[in-house]
């Protein structure tokens, strides 16, 4: 069997769904952030697979920037979690009153 584009796409979709499941089922804010990182990794994989398919570097540029954004989001996210932790001594989103969804 030859490894084709669809192998990567299906893997990406699978990884993305695992990430979505994590965001929906977990309550710990840090694990939710980690699940979001899984989703972004899945998207990056999809981008690079398409970039390979088209023989075009745009997709790789896109991934480069998405890594930058992911890093910035995690940094700000942890800053917020640290502030909240000082107040609440808990980061389970159930104990955070507003965070019911």
């Amino acid at each position, binding site marked *: *069997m030859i*490894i*084709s*584009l*669809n*192998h*990567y796409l*299906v*893997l990406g*979709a*699978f*990884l993305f*769904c*695992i*990430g*979505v*499941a*994590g965001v*929906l*089922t*977990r*309550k*710990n804010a*840090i*694990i939710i952030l*980690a*699940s979001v*990182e*899984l989703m972004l*990794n899945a998207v*990056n*994989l999809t981008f*690079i697979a398409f*970039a390979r*398919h088209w*023989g075009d*570097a*745009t997709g*790789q*540029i896109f*991934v*480069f*920037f998405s*890594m*930058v*954004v*992911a*890093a*910035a989001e*995690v*940094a*700000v996210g*942890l*800053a*917020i*979690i*640290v*502030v909240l932790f000082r107040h609440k001594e808990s980061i*389970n989103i*159930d104990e955070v009153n507003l965070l019911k969804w």
Partner: protein
Amino acid sequence: MILHFLTQAVFWFLVILTVGSAIVVVFNKRILHSAFALLFTLCGVAGLYVFLSADFLAASQMLVYVGGILTLIIFGVFLTARMYNMSIPEQTHQRFLALLPVLGLGGIIFYVLNSAEWHLITPMVAPTTENLGKMLLTTYLVPFEVASMLLLAALIGAIRLARPRKEDHDD
């Protein structure tokens, strides 16, 4: 023939590593285990980047994700979970209810991906680093600069929030 077999073996190893550890990240109840499982997912994805001849991004993945983001996440786990009780099992809510939209979404995406034709991937091309560098300073110059402002905003914002408060008082 042996080379072909080896390539296949490495590819499937990476796939299993990535998916397996991703499942651990999401479904393991111990927070620290989840954070460490993320390490293997990120490395597996970096390996797949090499397969897709994105050598520069594989290196960036190791530096930015493993070196930066993962470190931050583990740092956050240590900072917030009580140090002496690292393995507090965490409750999850209506897991099966939450999985319904995931299954729906997954079904749709798989359907679409599989109904499109199977494109074959052509053999490897040359290293991409030089090409990417040129593009970042020509076509993608503006995005490059916007990204720098984005990082500035994140930096200042994170410092402002995380700094211990002395001067703030309540409403």
